[in-house]
Structures are given as structure tokens and as C-alpha cells.
């Protein structure tokens, strides 16, 4: 069924998830507060080096991001949490190539600095809203990126059709977005992102608008899918449970100006089932992260938070 995507699979996917840590550098734990050195065993797929974003002139300047350093290794699932207005979306736009970093920093892709929209078309990006096109059916929404890439329509549709069952959309290919539920629309948007086969996937709160039950289901489903395809994922969320449940590492950002407060490596075994969230290890991680995030939220609240 998934043969259409074979090319995008990482060989790593073939081994059991337990085999994965072997590929992660032993230095991983020390990477909690500092970026990995360039000499790390595995070149990061994407690396942010001293990323700043300032708006306006000196006295009334707003600093959205202040010296963010973060490296993401191939095949990793990194989740990012932080109070609202901490510059998460700005960071995402930079990695997608939609915005430039200030000149004193850089985003590196496979070790090479990228500027002026060079990253456009290299990263598979899913914004917060599903942004499905009302005039396209499910299947034609899913193939949007393929069409832009110049894949013939029949071929694009065939590839999408093969993925429909995995996304729980079999039988809905000729429906229009207004005929779908919120969860289904989100899955179509995810499928569109998946079909744009790039090594790095950026997901900006994809489940933010869903109810708790649908959300939990979608999280497990996303993990299944990720374990099959092993793309590198950077995932923004407001939800600590979601961040821990999904991530290999959880990155916590500070209130504005956004910087990286801490990086927590999540060693919970994979595949992770629903019961993980009630395990003592999970609760312990959550307790620790919650304290940090609360502190930041209060800070952002007392300084007025997002403008």
C-alpha cells in the first residue's frame, strides 16, 4: 500500500524503534542546553544557529526571537512548546523559507546556510489552519503540492489514492472540504503535507482545533504513520502531554523574546500506546516540564504576552 512512498522512507525505519538510539549520538543528553557541535557523529538535517528576529528600530524594538540554537537530526521527532507569542511560528516560517533570520544568525539545511527563500520547496510545511481549498475535492487537495512539482495529474492522484486508507479517508476522495468533519479536514491537510515528500516536516499545531478524544486518536495515528515513514518532524504544540507523547525531544521556549529554555530528551519506549500517558515516567517528565512552562506562561502574562 505504501510502496508509493518507499523513496521517502528512511532505512532506519526497517529496524525496530529500540534500534534507533544507536544512531543518535551518545552526546545527546549534553545537548539539553547547548547546540550540538558541528562535529557530531550525524550531521543535523536542519540547524538553527544564533537565530534572531527583531522588529522595528532600537528604542521601540520588539524582539521575537533571541539567539535560538537548535539542531535536529535526521529521523528525529522534535516537539516545541512555549507560551503564546514566544515566536514559535516565526521560527517555523524561517525553517520553511518563508521568512529570513536576522543577518547575525542562520538556518542551516544539511550543513549549508539558507537565505532568501532558498528553503522554499525543500521543507514540507503544515500551517495551523488546514487551508484546504474549497474548490478542490479531497484527492485534489491532497495532490496540490505534487501538481506544483509538475507530477502528471493521473500519477499524482494514483499516489494519493494509495494513501487514502492510511489517513482514514477511503471513500471520501470526491468529497469537498465543506462536507468533512474537522478531524477529517486535518487528515487531508496532513496527507497533503505527507505527499510533499521532503525529509523535514514542519507541523504547526495540527491538532490544536480538535476535541480531546479526536486529538488523542490523531496523535497515536500520527505516531504510527511516523514510525512507518520516519520523516524528520518538528511539531509545535500548546499541549505538554502531546509534546511528551510524540517527541524524542521536547524543546521548551521562553516567553518573548523567544529563546530556548530547555530541551528534554524523552526516553519513553516506542511504539507508544495510549497507556504511556499514565505511566510514572511520563508523569515525572510532565511534572518537570509543567513547572518550567508555567513559569514562562506567568512571565508572558505579566509582561502583557503577545501584542
Amino acid at each position, binding site marked *: 500500500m505504501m510502496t508509493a512512498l518507499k523513496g521517502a522512507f528512511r532505512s532506519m525505519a526497517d529496524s525496530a524503534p529500540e534500534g534507533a538510539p544507536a544512531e543518535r549520538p551518545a552526546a545527546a543528553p549534553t545537548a539539553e542546553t547547548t547546540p550540538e557541535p558541528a562535529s557530531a557523529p550525524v550531521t543535523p538535517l536542519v540547524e538553527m544557529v544564533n537565530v534572531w528576529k527583531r522588529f522595528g528600530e532600537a528604542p521601540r524594538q520588539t524582539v521575537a526571537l533571541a539567539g535560538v540554537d537548535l539542531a535536529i537530526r535526521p529521523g528525529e521527532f522534535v516537539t516545541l512548546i512555549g507560551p503564546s507569542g514566544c515566536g514559535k511560528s516565526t521560527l517555523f*516560517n524561517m525553517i*520553511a*523559507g*518563508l521568512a529570513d533570520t536576522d543577518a547575525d544568525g542562520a538556518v542551516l539545511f544539511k550543513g549549508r546556510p539558507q537565505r532568501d*527563500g532558498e528553503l*522554499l*520547496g525543500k*521543507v*514540507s*510545511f503544515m*500551517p*495551523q*489552519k488546514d*487551508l484546504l*481549498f*474549497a*474548490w*478542490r475535492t479531497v484527492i485534489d487537495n491532497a495532490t*496540490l*503540492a505534487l*501538481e*506544483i*512539482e509538475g507530477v502528471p495529474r493521473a500519477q499524482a492522484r494514483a499516489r494519493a489514492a494509495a494513501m487514502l486508507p492510511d489517513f482514514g479517508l477511503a471513500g471520501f476522495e470526491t468529497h*469537498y472540504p465543506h462536507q468533512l468533519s474537522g478531524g477529517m479536514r486535518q487528515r487531508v491537510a496532513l496527507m497533503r503535507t505527507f505527499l*510533499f515528500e521532503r525529509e523535514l516536516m514542519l507541523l504547526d499545531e495540527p491538532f490544536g482545533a480538535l476535541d480531546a478524544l479526536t486529538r488523542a486518536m490523531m496523535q497515536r495515528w500520527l505516531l504510527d504513520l511516523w514510525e512507518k515513514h520516519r520523516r524528520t518532524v518538528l511539531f509545535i504544540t500548546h499541549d505538554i502531554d502531546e509534546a511528551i507523547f510524540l517527541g524524542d525531544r521536547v524543546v521548551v521556549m521562553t516567553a518573548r523574546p523567544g529563546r530556548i529554555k530547555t530541551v528534554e530528551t524523552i526516553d519513553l519506549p516506542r511504539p507508544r500506546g495510549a497507556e504511556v500517558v499514565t505511566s510514572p515516567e511520563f508523569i515525572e517528565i510532565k511534572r518537570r516540564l509543567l513547572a518550567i512552562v508555567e513559569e514562562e506562561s506567568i512571565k508572558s502574562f505579566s509582561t502583557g504576552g503577545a501584542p
Partner: protein
Amino acid sequence: MAGRLTETLHRILPVAAGLAALLLLWEGGVWLLDVPVYVLPGPFAILGTMVDNAGPLGAAVQITLGEALAGFVIGSLLGLSIAIVLVLAPPLETALLPLVVMLNSVPSVAFVPLALIWFGLGIASKIALASLAVSFAVLLNAIQGLKRPEQEAVDLMRSFGAGRLGILWRLRLPAAMPSIVTGLRVGLARSTIAVIVAEMMGAYAGIGQVIYQATAQIDYLVVWAAVFLSSLGSLALYGLLTLIDGRLVWWR
């Protein structure tokens, strides 16, 4: 099929009944109050005149509708093309859009004398006027529609590697379709008005000229017959447009 037929019947029947009631009321009122013909003739007298003069009236209305339709097509294409150019080149838009809005606020019939001088009394002047009237309506609505997609959707397209033309073709144009259809509707109404008014002020043929001449000859029945016929003609054009609407906004 049968279901659709009954549905259509259900929609048409009340309208037809209302129309019939109106005509009867009109006829009865005229007869009861003994209204003179030059004030208001009865509807059946008008219908009779229409039948009696079917030949010349039909020819006139054909010319008028032909001019209106030609102007509509040319004006729509013109308006849409200019809208696309302006949206692709924002500096041009900032420079030209105020001008367009200014020109649009002048009623297009004000240009009739100029059009007659420039394009003569034949069909060219009518088509030119209709094109002018239609193009503004389509242009302004199309610009609004083309700019409707939110920045996030544009960014999504960019992240997929789409260029300006790709974004125009796959995002802006389809998103603009409902607005464009609104522009087409407004434009069509304006186009028939412009043509008929222009014909009244100077033409060799057409329903406007028939109205003008009949008024000069104090032949009020023919005036009314021509007015009736031109409304029927506009209604037919509008029906045609409604058919096209469904194809332009196919996803609803």
C-alpha cells in the same frame, strides 16, 4: 430527473401565479378606472402589439441583445485581464486603482455622446460603451476576489515551491470565482442599460431606437411593447448567466 422537474415546477409555479395575478390586476384596474392609453395601456393590449409587430421588434431586440452580449464578453475579458495584471504588479495597482474607482463612479451613460462621436451611430459605439460599463464592474470585483486568499494560503503555496503564476492559477483565480461571478451579474445588467440608452441617443437600429421613435410618434403601445420585450431579453441573458454561474463556482 422527475424529482428535478417537480422541483423546478415548485419554483416556477408561484412566480408564474404572481405574474398572472399582477397582469389581471393591472388589466382590471385599467379597465375599471378607464385609464387613457397614453398614461397606461392594459397588458393585453401591449401583448397584442408585441404580436402584431413581432417582426420588427424581434429584429430590434436581436440587435440590442447582440450588442449587449458582445460588450459583455469583451468587457469581462478586459476587466479580468486588467485585474490579473494589477494583482500581479502591486505598484501598478496602487497607482491605477484610485483612477479606476474614480472612472467607475461616473455613470457609463455619461460617455454616450463621446462614444457616438468616436465610434459612429452603428453597433461599434454600443459595444464599446457596454464593454466599458462591464469591464469596471468585473475589474473591481475580480481584484477584490483575487486578493481574498489569506496570507497563510499564499505562504503554503510558496512553501510547496509555487511561483506567482502558480499561485494565481491554483489559488487566486479559483478563490476569486464567486466575486467574479458577482461582477459578471452586475456587468450584465449595466451592459443592457448602456446599450439601450446609447441606442436612444443615436442608432440605426435596436430596441432603444424603437422606443425613441415610437415616443416621438406618440405610439405608446409600441413603447410599452418594446420595454416589455427588452425586459424579457435581459431576463433571458440573466438566465444564461445563471447557467454559467454553476460552472464557474462548481464546488458549491
